[in-house]
């Protein structure tokens, strides 16, 4: 009996925790003319972040950051979501792999 109740409660807790994580801060980045705008964005430390990257160029780009351990294609005219963090305070560089000369930016995590 106790087994059933524990299961029911576990299910309830799991569903609650699954929905609780939906509210991470969102950061928007736009790629245009092979550049990121803004080139520097700030965000709080110790929190999961949701980067929404919109590519307004016709050509694809690859959002890449060794510091953030992320690599993801952004199709031409497309939009992607990249989840990062929780991060420690610091400057995390990212760039567009296909246009690494111009497409560069920083995610600044403040304490």
């Amino acid at each position: 009996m106790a087994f059933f109740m524990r299961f029911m409660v576990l299910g309830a807790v799991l569903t609650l925790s699954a929905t609780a994580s939906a509210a991470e801060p969102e950061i928007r980045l736009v790629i245009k003319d092979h550049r990121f705008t803004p080139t520097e964005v700030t965000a709080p430390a110790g929190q999961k972040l949701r980067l929404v990257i919109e590519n307004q160029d016709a050509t694809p780009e690859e959002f890449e950051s060794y510091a953030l351990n992320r690599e993801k294609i952004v199709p031409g005219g497309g939009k992607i979501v990249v989840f990062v963090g929780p991060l420690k305070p610091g400057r995390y560089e990212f760039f567009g792999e296909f246009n690494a000369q111009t497409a560069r930016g920083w995610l600044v995590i403040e304490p």
Partner: protein
Amino acid sequence: MIGAAIIVLREVVEAALIIGIVLAATTGVPRRGGFVAGGVVLGLVGAAVVAAFAGSIANALEGVGQEIFNAGVLLTATLMLGWHNVWMKRHGAEIARDMRAVGQDVTSGERSLAILLVVVGLAVLREGSEVALFMYGIAAGGAGAAPMFAGGMLGLAGGVALGALMYFGLLRIPTRQLFTVTSWLLLLLAAGMAAQAAGYLVQAGKLPALADPLWDTSAVLAENGIAGQALHALMGYVERPSGMQVLFFLLTGSTIGVLMNRFDRAPARIAPAAAAVAAFCVPALFLALASPTARAAHTIYSPVIEEGEVAIELRGHHDFDSRDDMDGAQQFKVDLEYAPTWFWRTEVLGEWEKEPGGSLDATEVAWENIFQFAPQGKYWADFGMVVELIHSLEDGGEDGIELGFLGEKQFDATVLTVNLFGEREFTSGAGTEMEYAARYRWRLSETFEPGIEVFGELGDWGHNGSVDEHSHQVGPALLGKVRAGEHSAIKYETAVLFGVTHDAPDTTVRLQLEYEF
């Protein structure tokens, strides 16, 4: 309605059988009728309390988003149904024996009549609360209240009638067959509930659809027709299922089916419907016996896929050992890989092996698929799986499948990757060889990441044997990525592994090179 009827019927018959056994074993004991009836009433009251409690949890969760809540209830009911099915296979006979023993103790005066109240009450309580829980599952699947009530009543009437007829000896249904049939129906029901849960999670954006729809059978069997509705209630049939729904259905159905067979005392005989489900998915991780010929793979897979990546990869290792029959063994794999989406990477590969003192021979070709379960970093850790179909090129070699579960978790500048594999050949009586691999690496710089790796074989599933017969290796590793132009790069991984158990080679050197276009 059909789903509700089956569940209630099954639970009522189970309770009725227990009551019937107790009654049969206490024939002639005065006042037993009152105690048994009292037990039934107490059990029903308890089950009603459980139902009310489950209902209050449902109310408390009202605000969390209907899709997630429904999926949670459905998955809970799926787990419970599956567990119940497997557990009954294992303990059904024991329960009957225990009940009979209790009845005899009462008859011989060794135990008081009050025990009848307790055992009957507990049996009714257990089955009744299962009914309550499973009904919430059916309701979460979108069934209306009126048909559910009608189905429940139908099941109740049928169950009581069956129980009474069997007790009075009017009907001799072999209970074993009755339970076999209802077990398979419950299996389909549980798989259907899991598929519906997947549908809700996809709708809520918590899971990828994997292909939406995977197929469309609206022309063949309309979902709102009578047959379609019956199949929907019975096994969650939908006209246009997403790939994720089909995956949930197959994984749930085959897992429960295989576990049921495994825990059945008699030799397994699989019902046709379930055989089709199980055969489709080959849940290799749960099967047992015999020993495969393939050697440990010495690869660590990350669950993280880079969409659009095209690459050629070479993996190899060389063993050094003081024993002649182990010294100088080599293995090489060459593969071509492509990731068409963020959650799927597919590759074809060839493998060559050199036995100690032998020559280097082509041993197998394989098709490997890696699935990433959620976008990287979205949850606490990243998870995925690898499915590899292997065709042997050796004389007398057997084809097989390898399934692996992949996990990865980043801790600041370090990353822990863990793999657990099961490999099995497609022959009857073949066993599932369990293997693991793990790496903890420090992301010092892109070109230079030191780490530590462990690899091991755990023997066959269910026949693990002693630690000395297992092969465990551990050692330092180095990996990194060197850019070779605008879009291309070379990734390397190398490790020196030392055997820590008797059956492991003294030293293994492994090297993996990948050229990304």
